């Protein structure tokens, strides 16, 4: 909310009336990416007032939109500053801007450049974006950048809960919650494409099951358990506690990805939330039963 650039027209280098005009949001990182990519080009940068929100999210809300663009072109008097009538917009601004309407209302034609500002130097040579420049990616680097954000968003429970559980019931429940945190918040974003199945929730449930099995194996070895009803009860309990929770965290990662649709996510919520709830309740019941059986020395 505090990463704002003052909206308006900026000149980069030493632009002339023939220099190109690039449009962006007034989010610092969007603006910086653009001016870094254009450091060797004399040009104008038109910054729209998107309330400090990035291009893609602002376009979805409509603040990076036709109305704002038209009003900025008029209030700045862009027609008097440049002789041409062309604007280059980031491709991801397209959900908010109707190019044909902008042309009708201002005379300026809108050209959608590449998704990433870093491709602009190549784009300017031909004014033709390649398929590669048009495609949105979500590779390991993109996903790794999100991990610290995910950690921050989940600290509210991930910090106090292990401490509370450690005091109330000892090391294993605390470790179990830490395992959920590591699997759901750190590993899931990194492993997303290699996890089997299509849905985020089921991918998370699979990852969580492996995490549950792992922590059970450690305890089996550390506590020198013998293989019997109690040990199996704990195994099922761990898997049924960890996997739905990791599945839920994973489901919430849909919005961070670059390819989920509203229709798809809605179906996934309705399909998986009941499953997740039932699994978790079964896990709690099994944990209680196993603990009782364990303490009675079965």
């Amino acid at each position, binding site marked *: 909310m505090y990463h704002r650039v003052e909206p308006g027209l900026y000149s980069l280098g030493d632009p002339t009336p023939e220099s190109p005009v690039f449009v962006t949001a007034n989010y610092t990182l969007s603006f910086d990416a653009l001016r870094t990519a254009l450091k060797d080009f004399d040009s104008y940068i038109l910054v729209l007032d998107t309330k400090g929100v990035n291009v893609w999210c602002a376009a979805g809300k409509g603040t990076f939109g036709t109305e704002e663009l038209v009003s900025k072109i008029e209030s700045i008097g862009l027609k008097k500053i440049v002789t041409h009538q062309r604007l280059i917009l980031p*491709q991801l601004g397209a959900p908010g801007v109707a190019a044909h309407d902008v042309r009708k209302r201002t005379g300026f034609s809108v050209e959608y450049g590449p998704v990433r500002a870093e491709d602009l130097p190549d784009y300017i040579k031909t004014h033709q974006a390649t398929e590669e420049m048009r495609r949105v990616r979500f590779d390991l680097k993109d996903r790794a950048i999100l991990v610290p954000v995910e950690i921050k968003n989940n600290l509210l429970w991930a910090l106090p809960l292990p401490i509370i559980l450690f005091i109330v019931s000892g090391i294993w429940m605390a470790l179990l919650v830490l395992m959920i945190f590591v699997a759901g918040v750190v590993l899931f974003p990194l492993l997303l494409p290699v996890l089997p199945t299509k849905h985020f929730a089921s991918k998370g449930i699979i990852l969580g099951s492996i995490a549950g099995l792992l922590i059970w194996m450690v305890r089996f070895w550390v506590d020198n358990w013998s293989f019997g009803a109690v040990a199996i009860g704990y195994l099922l309990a761990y898997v049924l506690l960890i996997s739905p929770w990791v599945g839920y965290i994973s489901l919430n990662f849909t*919005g961070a990805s670059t390819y989920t649709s509203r229709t798809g996510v809605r179906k996934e919520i309705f399909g998986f939330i009941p499953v997740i709830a039932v699994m978790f309740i079964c896990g709690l019941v099994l944990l209680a039963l196993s603990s009782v059986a364990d303490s009675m020395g079965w």
Partner: protein
Amino acid sequence: MEAIPMIKLEEVYKTAINTLEFLPGKCANCGMCINVCPHEVFRSGQKRVEMVHGEACMECGACQRNCPTGAIRVDSGVGCAAAMISAALRGKKEVSCGPECCD
């Protein structure tokens, strides 16, 4: 004699998994949808654009907004479970990114 490819004006192409609809009868072949789509859903064709990966659509709405002839319809919105769940919990209908979410 070679058959002339014909298309009904009101023909609608849909996908099974999202709300994207393409009406080739209205397409003027300007190619704007190809330019704005982040997932290569459309491909240029002879007389009109072709919808080739409709199932990859993430319903961002860019193609619909930039189609000058109204040949594309999509119920656009954010594919974000966190936003939908938080909106449902707060009893709000409007689901979007922004200060209330992810900030």
